[in-house]
């Protein structure tokens, strides 16, 4: 391995940050990891945009609004390897369960007719990204190179995947590491 550290960017789109929490479950292995890896754009660094030369992009969550689409495209443009992390990135997951309900009904239920709602109105600030009609898995928007299933994938999954990549091996997960739940 050369001295140049591998640049990793991460983001949670329509996710719950559970995959990021699971990533942090690497615990003391994080110390070893940062000897080989530096974090670029990520909630862990608060860097707002990807550098142009990121090596690995880890995407948690599906795509539920216009901002998610822009962010996902930024990651694809700047990361050599893009990875779908967790059930929501892979199939839309829990947020995609709204796909059976019309967007209008969803918004009305949450902001107009919901129990305990005061001053009912649909949020419409220009700062707010517009919701997509449906929640989509990220592979429907950009090319994805690897998929790490799980809700969330365990820290061992991240470890095996990243150490394989860092060692120049084709990443492979054994049976115990692949779970859709």
């Amino acid at each position, binding site marked *: 391995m050369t001295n140049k550290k591998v640049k990793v960017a991460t983001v949670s789109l329509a996710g719950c940050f559970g995959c990021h929490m699971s990533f942090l479950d690497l615990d003391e292995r994080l110390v070893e990891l940062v000897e080989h890896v530096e974090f670029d754009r990520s909630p862990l660094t608060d860097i707002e945009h990807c550098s142009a030369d990121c090596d690995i992009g880890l995407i948690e969550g599906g795509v539920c609004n216009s901002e998610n689409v822009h962010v996902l495209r930024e990651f694809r443009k700047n990361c050599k390897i893009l990875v779908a992390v967790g059930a929501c990135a*892979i199939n*839309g997951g*829990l947020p995609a369960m709204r796909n*059976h309900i019309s967007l209008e009904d969803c918004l009305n239920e949450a902001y107009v007719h919901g129990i305990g709602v005061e001053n009912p109105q649909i949020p419409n600030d220009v700062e707010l990204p517009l919701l997509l009609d449906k929640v989509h898995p990220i*592979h*429907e928007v950009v090319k994805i190179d690897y998929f790490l299933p799980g809700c969330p994938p365990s820290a061992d999954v991240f470890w095996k995947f990243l150490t394989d990549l860092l060692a120049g091996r084709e990443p492979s997960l054994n*049976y115990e590491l692949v779970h859709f*739940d």
Partner: protein
Amino acid sequence: MNKTIVIDGKVIPFQDGQTIMEAAAEAGIYIAHLCHNPQFTPHGSCKLCTVKVNGRNCSACTFPASEGQNITNISKELNDDREKITQMLFVEGNHFCPSCEKTGNCNLQAVAYHLGMTDNHFPHFFENREVDASHPDVMIDHNRCIFCTLCVRASQEVDSKNVFAISGRGLEKRLVVNSESGLLKDSDLDVNDCAAHICPTGAILIKRTGYKVPIGQRIFDHAHIDTVTLANEGASHDE
């Protein structure tokens, strides 16, 4: 002298009347499948068990074994096809494993694990399908039905009833219930019926039992579907 067929270079015996699937199971060879169960008449619809017989693709669960067959079961081409079929099943229905009671005990999920499937590849349909929770003990979540017809056959062949059927064609295909209202509560399904317990996915579930076995201790959490299936469906053909 035993009659034999060759599967992936291995010579195995068969008896007249056996399908390739039956001969393979007896010899301890797993051929991936979802709609097949040795208890019932083969249906040949899921196509996961497609093998190459003397160069031609055939469904192992329906194709009779016969002398001189040289069969390929495991090849990259066949397994890639199986993976694509499984991915199509995942995108056609709404299979959200983390929120499904059947996770870990689900044959669809286990076949996906077996094939090394980590994504669904195709665009999702996100079709709106119904849940029928009308029956006091059994529920149907149509989101997870893969139309394998195991419940249809179990009801007819084991329970001597006729509770389920598949109606419609192509994308309009649906599992229907034989009752005037179309609801499960008005059918003669009993919680002890074979049909109530045979679903390979989480489409037909027994109420109030979902989390008796915690996630992490379920059948396929640690055991591969090939070993589990051969233990259940191999030599003795007992379930």
